[in-house]
């Protein structure tokens, strides 16, 4: 991944294609939805293989955590305009309510502050109506190059 954009120019659509085509993001099925300066929005299609309890059909919280980790990660590269390797220091997620069975979940991550070594992020997930979020996240990442 480090040498995907050797010139430093960050292309989120290309990046999500690469990231969601393999590894854990592929297992979860995360897709690109939208982006802007300093934010990225992804989509987690409803999938019964990701349900926590077959009798309710409610998605497990783990896949939502994974999507928010990826959305907040991408928001950092979109804020700085270039790809640089980073590691999650911590990520907190508040589960406001369960996602409705059958509905896709959208996750938007935003990088609201950057320092030389640390990126501060926050984000929200919803299942169709951004005014009725299902989860909030907050976290920090550390840049690992030269660390």
């Amino acid at each position, binding site marked *: *991944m480090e040498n995907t954009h050797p010139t430093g120019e960050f292309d989120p659509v290309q990046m999500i294609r690469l990231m969601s085509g393999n590894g854990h993001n592929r*297992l979860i099925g995360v897709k690109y939805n939208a982006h802007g300066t300093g934010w990225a929005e992804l989509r987690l299609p409803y999938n019964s293989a990701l349900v926590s309890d077959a009798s309710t059909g409610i998605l497990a*919280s783990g*896949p939502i*955590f994974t999507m928010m980790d990826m959305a907040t990660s991408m928001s950092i590269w979109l804020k700085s305009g270039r790809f640089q390797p980073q590691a999650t*220091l911590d990520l907190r997620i508040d589960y406001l309510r369960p996602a409705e069975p059958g509905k896709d979940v959208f996750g938007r991550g935003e990088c609201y502050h950057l320092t030389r070594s640390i990126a501060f992020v926050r984000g929200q997930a919803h299942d169709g109506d951004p005014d009725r979020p299902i989860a909030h996240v907050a976290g920090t990442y550390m840049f690992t190059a030269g660390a």
Partner: protein
Amino acid sequence: METNSPFARTMGFGSERDSEGRLVLTMAFETNKMGRPGFLHGGAIAGMLEAVAFTTLAEALDADDNARIKPINVTVNYLRGGRDALTRARATIERLGRRVANVEAIAWQDDPENPIAIAQMNLMLQRD
């Protein structure tokens, strides 16, 4: 969430008991758990920590206790990268009240004294 939930099966979680009889979840390193090349995805580690916290709490509730467990929040601290090795996770119930439980979970690869990630989780116990 149980160790035999659809999500747990998708993740390939296994379970074992340590010498004190505590539940330990296991997760093999496979490409479908990977984030950056060669390392576990933070989301896969978080999913495992949540699962062991949830399952350990479910076991601790009395069999006749019909409380339903709902996640309130989870904070994951990542201490080191998860490498190409078997990962284990176990949970400790810090507080078990009537309405809320607080659980700490750790994930490790070679030595539980040297965890790769630690999670603090608050869970709601909903009683009818």
